[in-house]
């Protein structure tokens, strides 16, 4: 047997090292559909517990929305379970084309290409369009999948300080000798919930003849006055060249992703992107349900308006309770704790209070910036949010952090 006792022992040591660093990811089981109210088995083997979910990417509350579930059923009945093929062989149905067209229309882009996930879209887009004569300039806090995609590409790359436009301009000047320059950013950064200043970035790109790609995974469907995204919020839709986004968050919550943008760039992705060429198509039930999602978010702004209200209501509640909250105006609300153990302990106590939230700390966020990241959903009711705020107040009081600012919390608990 190739998997020897020695090999097993060495792998076990690797796992123990992860545990020793305090970054071991424990198993948590959801025993109900994804929603604002869920049943959780945690730790593994423990009795199921009903909790309110404040850590899902279920921004618009569509993960278990009756119309979306119905559309998935219809997709299953009318187009079957799976495609058993990559897109370009025999894995593209008419509904894949329909979804691509609806996404292009919604985002205000020329063309769209579906991928099995946004992780795949981000893995494939750079290698498809750029080469060694080109350079990618990336914000330092972009999503890990963009970093992986950039590293898979033969283009040179450089980085600029997070949302620092002076630094970006310096890098744009530095790389003027390259054939193509592609600036890369998240629209909404998932850990801080801050919005990239896309209007300024697009103006700089125009000034220095650079293209721009925006990952809108935490924005599509709800940022901007009609939910088109960060480019709508900053009124620069026509200046954005490429958008990558997901159907796994606000736009449904199942899976799938896409690249949307200038038609030549999308065509190159269709010809070259390895995750498109070598991975199965999005399954028909999910495609059909995603079409219904696009219809829902195009029809009116009811869900994104409710989400906006919920986020503002929660933010006001925890701020008034005396917690230290990172400023912002997105459904991602980081309750700042700075100390990793405090973030861990508080999230455990919040769970005991029936609120499911997770503590984040280095290396997921910068050292000394530990927090509990709260994510609001349109599925939350006012009562859900009141309960979450009350729990934060109770747990915050237990740890003596109410009314303390960053310095106060660090003085008390350290970084």
């Amino acid at each position, binding site marked *: 047997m190739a998997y020897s006792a020695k090999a097993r022992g060495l792998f076990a040591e690797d796992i123990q090292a992860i545990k020793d660093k305090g970054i071991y990811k424990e198993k948590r089981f959801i025993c109900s559909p994804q929603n604002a109210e869920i049943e959780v088995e945690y730790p593994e083997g423990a009795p199921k517990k009903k909790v309110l979910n404040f850590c899902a990417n279920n921004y618009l509350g569509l993960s278990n929305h009756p119309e979306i579930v119905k559309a998935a059923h219809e997709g299953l009945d009318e187009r079957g379970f799976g495609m058993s093929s990559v897109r370009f062989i025999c894995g593209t149905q008419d509904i894949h084309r329909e979804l691509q067209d609806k996404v292009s229309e919604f985002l205000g882009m020329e063309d769209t290409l579906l991928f099995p996930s946004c992780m795949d879209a981000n893995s494939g887009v750079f290698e498809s369009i750029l080469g060694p004569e080109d350079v990618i300039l*990336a914000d*330092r806090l972009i999503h890990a999948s963009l*970093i992986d995609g950039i590293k898979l590409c033969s283009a040179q*790359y*450089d*980085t600029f*300080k*997070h949302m*620092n436009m002076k630094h970006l301009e310096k890098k744009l000047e530095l790389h003027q000798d390259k054939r193509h320059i592609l600036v890369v950013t998240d629209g909404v950064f998932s850990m801080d919930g801050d919005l990239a200043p896309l209007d300024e970035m697009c103006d700089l790109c125009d000034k220095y003849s650079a293209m721009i790609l925006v990952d809108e995974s935490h924005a599509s469907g709800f940022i901007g006055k009609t939910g088109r995204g960060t480019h709508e919020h900053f009124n620069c839709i026509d200046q954005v060249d490429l958008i990558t986004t997901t159907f796994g968050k606000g736009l449904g919550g199942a899976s799938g992703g896409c690249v949307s943008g200038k038609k030549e760039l999308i065509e190159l992705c269709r010809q070259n992107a390895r995750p498109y060429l070598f991975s199965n198509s999005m399954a028909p039930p999910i495609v059909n349900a995603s079409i219904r999602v696009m219809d829902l978010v195009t029809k009116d702004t009811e869900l994104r308006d409710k989400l906006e209200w919920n986020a503002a209501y929660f933010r006001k509640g925890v701020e008034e309770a005396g917690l230290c909250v990172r400023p912002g105006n997105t459904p991602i609300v980081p309750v700042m704790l700075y100390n990793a153990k405090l973030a861990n302990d508080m999230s455990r106590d919040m769970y005991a209070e029936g609120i499911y939230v997770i503590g984040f700390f*280095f*290396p997921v966020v*910068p*050292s000394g910036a530990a927090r509990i990241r709260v994510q609001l959903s349109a599925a939350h009711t006012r009562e859900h949010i009141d309960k979450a705020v009350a729990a934060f107040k109770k747990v915050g009081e237990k740890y003596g952090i109410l009314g303390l600012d960053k310095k106060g919390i660090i003085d008390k608990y350290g970084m």
Partner: protein
Amino acid sequence: MAEEMKDMVLEYVIDEYVDEDDEIEVGFETPLISSGIVDSFSMVSLKVFLEKKCHVSLPDKEATPEAFDTVNKICELVRRFQD
């Protein structure tokens, strides 16, 4: 000469990786990678800077997060490949 290089690298690291509102003091022995001041993704800017300024080629297998963890270690690495 060695001191000049250390000063130059330290100045670059502060300018490139520290924000004006960061409450961080960076010196020759300050951990850069293991403390999170510089992450492995943005380390590439530093490598390109060193190669250009010090007229040296640093093989990827040598330009590791460990070798880039302090200004002193970075300068040691550069000197090794200058020799």
